[in-house]
């Protein structure tokens, strides 16, 4: 009796697992170039950990510089705008499953008769993105290096910190994309929790008078604040590349979570710093987030001075940001090059780019110039946010890559390339 029953249950379980397996297999794109699928959770983690990086150390200052007491609202609105950009990128990715932005932009822009024309026209756009990612990575590394030197390790030369960091990036570059996304997924709590922890605890020093009046600011100034907040969310544009491998079906949800997590984290830290310091004091602080930790009593938490520990943990957050960006740069470069061995090409490009990156890191002469140049990269980012919308519009108008089932896609490709 019981045995029979057990067997029956087992059969049912097997049937279910088989079904799951089957459905997974079905979801996998059959294109031979994509060897694996990024699960929706991994893709959320990838977006989140790329966005959250060295910017958190300075974020509250630009946030409150324009929007004053309503800084956290500006951060929230910035996040919402970013969500729409992310939505465009996701929809684009859905239209071209298994193809990265490098591969489909040429088709989208070019004419039907010749592929080379499309590729040539697309090249400046691709290069723009690649340079922007490189710039963002370099800015993140320099910013973090400056924070370490000025707050924790004053005697260590910046060159050593940056050099070691770049070498460590190389280690990330030799592995495959699959490993990168898993790496991001594993480290997600290390990135999310410290900021949450610090912000919530520091609220014990918060003063209500610092965050009111909340809606006094006029609309135009507020919008300017929102734009400056959008700078802080850069980096998620690498999903133009990696959306190709994300599990079908849950993309929009995963992207939403990927944007929502950093937004939530940013709001927390901005709200906490403004509530504790007030917007006027914030303008005096080079590293507001570190200063927040200095002014909060953590003595119940064994470590009385937590800022060194935070910077030590924060290496991870900056590493994932810079690592993902660097990977995206080399990945895109390798795809642009007319070579079949993309993996090898990526590694060599990475090795060649390292000295360039090192040189770029030391290009800003001082902290002020660094902040100024980060702002310029932010403006470049604004342009970059418009591009996915344009591409999506083009795709809709020219009825390319409808995001239909794969068979359809293949037929279209065949028609295209057979003559």
């Amino acid at each position, binding site marked *: 009796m019981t045995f029979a029953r057990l067997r029956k249950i087992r059969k049912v379980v097997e049937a279910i697992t088989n079904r799951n397996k089957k459905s997974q297999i079905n979801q996998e794109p059959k294109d031979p170039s994509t060897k694996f699928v990024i699960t929706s959770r991994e893709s959320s983690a990838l977006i989140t950990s790329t966005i959250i990086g060295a910017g958190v150390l300075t974020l509250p200052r630009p946030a409150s510089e324009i929007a004053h*007491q309503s800084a956290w609202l500006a951060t929230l609105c910035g996040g919402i705008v970013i969500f729409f950009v992310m939505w465009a990128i996701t929809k684009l990715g859905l239209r071209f499953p298994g193809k990265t932005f490098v591969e489909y932009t040429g088709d989208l822009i070019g004419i039907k008769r010749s592929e080379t024309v499309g590729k040539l026209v697309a090249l400046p756009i691709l290069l723009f993105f690649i340079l922007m990612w490189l710039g963002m990575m370099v800015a993140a590394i320099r910013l973090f290096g400056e924070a370490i030197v*000025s*707050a*924790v*390790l*004053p*005697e*260590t*030369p910046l060159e*050593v910190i940056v050099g070691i960091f770049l070498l460590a990036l190389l280690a990330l570059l030799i592995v495959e994309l699959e490993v990168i996304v898993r790496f991001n997924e594993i480290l997600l709590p290390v990135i999310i929790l410290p900021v949450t922890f610090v912000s919530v605890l520091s609220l014990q020093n918060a*003063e*209500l*008078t*610092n*965050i*009111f*009046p909340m809606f*006094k600011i006029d609309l135009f100034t507020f919008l300017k604040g929102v734009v400056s907040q959008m700078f802080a969310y850069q980096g998620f544009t690498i999903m133009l590349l990696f959306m190709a491998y994300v599990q079908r079906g849950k993309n929009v949800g995963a992207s939403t979570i990927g944007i929502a997590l950093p937004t939530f984290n940013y709001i927390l830290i901005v709200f906490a710093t403004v509530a504790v*310091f*007030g917007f*006027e*004091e914030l*303008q*005096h602080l080079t590293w507001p987030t570190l*200063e927040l930790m*200095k*002014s909060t*009593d953590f003595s119940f938490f064994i470590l009385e*001075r937590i800022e060194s520990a935070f910077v030590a943990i924060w290496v991870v957050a900056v590493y994932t940001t810079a690592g993902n960006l660097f990977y995206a740069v080399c990945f895109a470069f390798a795809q642009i090059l007319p070579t079949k061995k993309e993996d090898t090409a990526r590694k060599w490009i990475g090795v060649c780019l390292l000295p360039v990156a090192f040189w770029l890191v030391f290009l800003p002469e001082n902290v002020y110039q660094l902040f100024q140049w980060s702002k310029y990269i932010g403006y470049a980012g604004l342009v970059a946010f418009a591009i996915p919308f344009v591409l999506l519009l083009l795709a809709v108008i020219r009825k390319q890559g409808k995001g239909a089932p794969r068979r359809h896609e293949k037929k279209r490709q065949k028609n295209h390339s057979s003559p």
Partner: protein
Amino acid sequence: MRKKGRRIIHHLKSLLIALGCLLLLSGCWDEREIEDRTSVVAIAVDKADDGHILLTAQIPLPLKIAGGGGGTSGGGGGGGAESVKIINTKGRTFEEAVGKIQYRVDQKLFFGQLTVIAFGKELAKDGIQSTIDALRRMRQTRRLMYPVVVEGKAAELMSQTTDLEKIPANFVRNMIDNGVRLGFLPNLTLGQFFTRLSSKARQPAMLNFKVDGSKIIVTGVAAFKGDKLAGLLNRRETSNLLRVSKENSGGDITLRVGGKGMATFEPKLVDTNYDFSYEGGKVHSRIMVKIEGEVTELTFPMNLKNKKIHEKLERTVEKELAKQSTKMIQELQKFGTDIVGLGARVRAFHNAIWEKVDWDKAFSNADVEVQYDVKIRRSGMELKNYQ
């Protein structure tokens, strides 16, 4: 042959990785053992006769602190004077004077343990901007340390030793910590000072100390206007300041009740509410303080069980406190500095008024009314005293 070549490459790779790991063993670039640094725990800044800055640093001597208690049985208690080293330097700026300390100690100076920074009254009156700037830029200072003003020379606070604590700086810090916890001192940290200094809505303040012979006494609060000392509040005014600014209970209150005798009341701050209006070019402000607490002493027979008598005592306390608080506010208006935080509240919750006035001037002319609502909840372990 090919296999052999591969193996050699493999060995070379392992060797390279092993050598690379060797680099990691060298440790931290900035490593500095605790015995390789000289901790400064307190700094006093005074004005020298020639306008320069006179700096007094307090450096604890670990050996003396550890050995002082058990080593000499006779004079063990009196070892306080030797447990810290006092170093005086002079300089045109704060940092220059700090730099000169380094010439007189054998290890690198460390300011991470700095807990108290004392300003002489003379210097505070002239303004402490340069010192504040240096402290802001300093990497090691914490925002949770205490800045204080010392009547007379701040250096006296550094050299004054007490039997209660081996390190005078710790004594001062514990004194403030516990004062805040017990409710009679405001929590005025360096971070608070920075924040208020940059805010237009609230002026900074520090605790005020006095060194009298061998005694270290808290005498109240020093109100600043910008970076300059504007005036001093005594202890009674300080406790009223605490209640009016919704920070703390302000500690015990002893007052005369009618013609009969004295009563001591231990309050607990419940709530403070603010109401602002703008009429006739003047800001009108009403502050409602709600406190409750218990009677800790009565020097005359009084039946608190009787509702009428009970309420009469409450009204007496209310009246007295309202009088004291109003006087304290008037004193601040005379100094022209709003350390209560009325401006911050106007800006946050009555922004229309804030836009109309220049708070620096408006505060001095404001019409401030303080009202108390006192509830006597209990009267200690004694229900009824001897009639």
